[in-house]
């Protein structure tokens, strides 16, 4: 059941090029535009910009998959009343949820499988094997709060507005968190806000992994992310219950 459901969830996403192509290729495009040109510039801690920006894009790509895959699919399925028929089957809701999480993690892993070699070749990024692995597991683990955020948005927005809502939230947050340009280049007021953004904390984990000196300890970043995870999860559960009481009571 779990295998079939996961397979179906994966195919559902894979066959929507608007999702699969953008989540796999967009990080590469950004990396080409911003990362490659100044890849050899050396930043604090002797870290090359090519590696720094790889960490930025890894964070961007994985969080992007989590928010979009959950947000849009939940909103669409609500809009098309797919949830209705699924609810009438013996499929345990937990399996449903789990299959989607597995799918999202696999997809997120795929974005890394594409991005890492690209940065290695095009950005001439050379890291120890353990550093590559640390980066990979941190961005996959750190993306969990964004799953909850995706769910919350999926239940709170309509099927046609979900994409717009997500873009409105995600893109500005990615900029403000320094994923496209290092934080120091952002306006002062944004710099003051960014330490409180979940995506910034997520970014810190990535930058720290490739050896860039981050201002606070990794533990602090994990704690921030865990806190956001709890908040987003609570909102998602609330939104789910709200929907539940409207449609299925």
């Amino acid at each position: 059941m779990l295998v079939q459901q996961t397979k179906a969830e994966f195919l559902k996403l894979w066959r929507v090029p608007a999702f699969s192509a953008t989540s796999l290729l967009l990080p590469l495009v950004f990396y080409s535009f911003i990362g490659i040109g100044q890849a050899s510039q050396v930043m604090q801690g002797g870290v090359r910009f090519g590696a720094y920006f790889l960490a930025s894009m890894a964070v961007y790509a994985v969080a992007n998959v989590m928010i979009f895959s959950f947000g849009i699919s939940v909103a669409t399925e609500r809009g098309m009343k797919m949830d209705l028929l699924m609810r009438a089957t013996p499929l345990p809701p937990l399996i449903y949820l789990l299959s989607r999480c597995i799918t999202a993690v696999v997809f997120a892993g795929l974005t890394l499988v594409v991005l890492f070699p690209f940065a290695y070749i095009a950005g001439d990024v050379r890291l120890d094997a353990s550093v590559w692995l640390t980066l990979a597991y941190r961005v996959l683990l750190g993306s969990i709060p964004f799953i909850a955020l995706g769910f919350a948005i999926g239940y709170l927005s309509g099927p046609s507005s979900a994409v717009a809502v997500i873009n409105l939230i995600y893109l500005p947050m990615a900029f403000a968190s320094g994923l496209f340009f290092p934080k120091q280049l952002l306006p002062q007021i944004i710099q003051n806000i960014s330490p409180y953004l979940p995506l910034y904390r997520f970014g810190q984990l990535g930058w720290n992994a490739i050896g860039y000196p981050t201002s606070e300890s990794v533990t602090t970043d994990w704690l921030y992310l865990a806190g956001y995870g709890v908040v987003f999860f609570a909102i998602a559960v609330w939104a789910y219950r709200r929907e539940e009481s409207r449609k299925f009571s």
Partner: protein
Amino acid sequence: MPPAAELIDATKKYGEIEALRGVTIRIELGDVVAILGPNGAGKTTSISLLVGLRKPTSGKALLFGLEPTNLLVRSRVGVMLQESGVPAMLKVREIVDLFRSYYPKPLPRDRAIAMAGLEEKANALVKELSGGQRQRLYFALAVCGDPDVLFLDEPTVGMDVEGRRSFIERIAEFARMGRTVVLTTHYLEEADQLAKRVIVIDRGVVIADAPPAEIKSKVAGRRMRFVAPDLTERDLEGLPVTAVSITDHRVQLLTNRPEAVLRDLFQRGVDISDLEVAGADLEDAFIAMTSH
């Protein structure tokens, strides 16, 4: 053994609107039941309660004596809903396999697809299906788990006459496997063709629960048609008739006692011609029962 499906004095309110006002239905294993009624009568609400998509405001909805939301119970039930979508980007065989995986003893995939007559579309994406094919896909999804009880909410809605007929035959085939089928419809001939028992719901209340033949006979067994110039409805006052319609001197009415009606009409000096008396079909009976 508890019945396959049961509503016990179930009421359902959506805000101020009372969709069901105390409905009691008992469906035994092996029954083939049509729930009939005009739009807004409470048919879909009854199905929603029985399959556990909605909870009754008061009273009970039970499947095999248990809550309909119980997953073990659900694994014995197949459902086809009126308004529901399925993922557009999956192929027919993929989604059938997906739904089969939810059930402990599903039918073979090809069998389920064949029962719905979708063999040629097995490799097509759901989004490429026509409306009628999509309905058949929903049917395949409802039967693929080899359920003991099949709930169909207006399964033939939006189909043409030929499509409806062959679809009803597919449902009948499933019922012949000894399964319980509960369907809602407002196409009366479907109930007549398929069901051994018809439950008529109107404005949230069960107004009849009997075999189709009995419903026909109970209300108005005969339909009379004749031409009578200058006849008005007042001329028919006191006669044992229902559902009278008079257009262009053409009179149509339902009655159980056509002879008595004729005698009275002659006594009243009404001049009639082109008399025709026929057995009323379920449609006539239904109109008579629910005309307010």
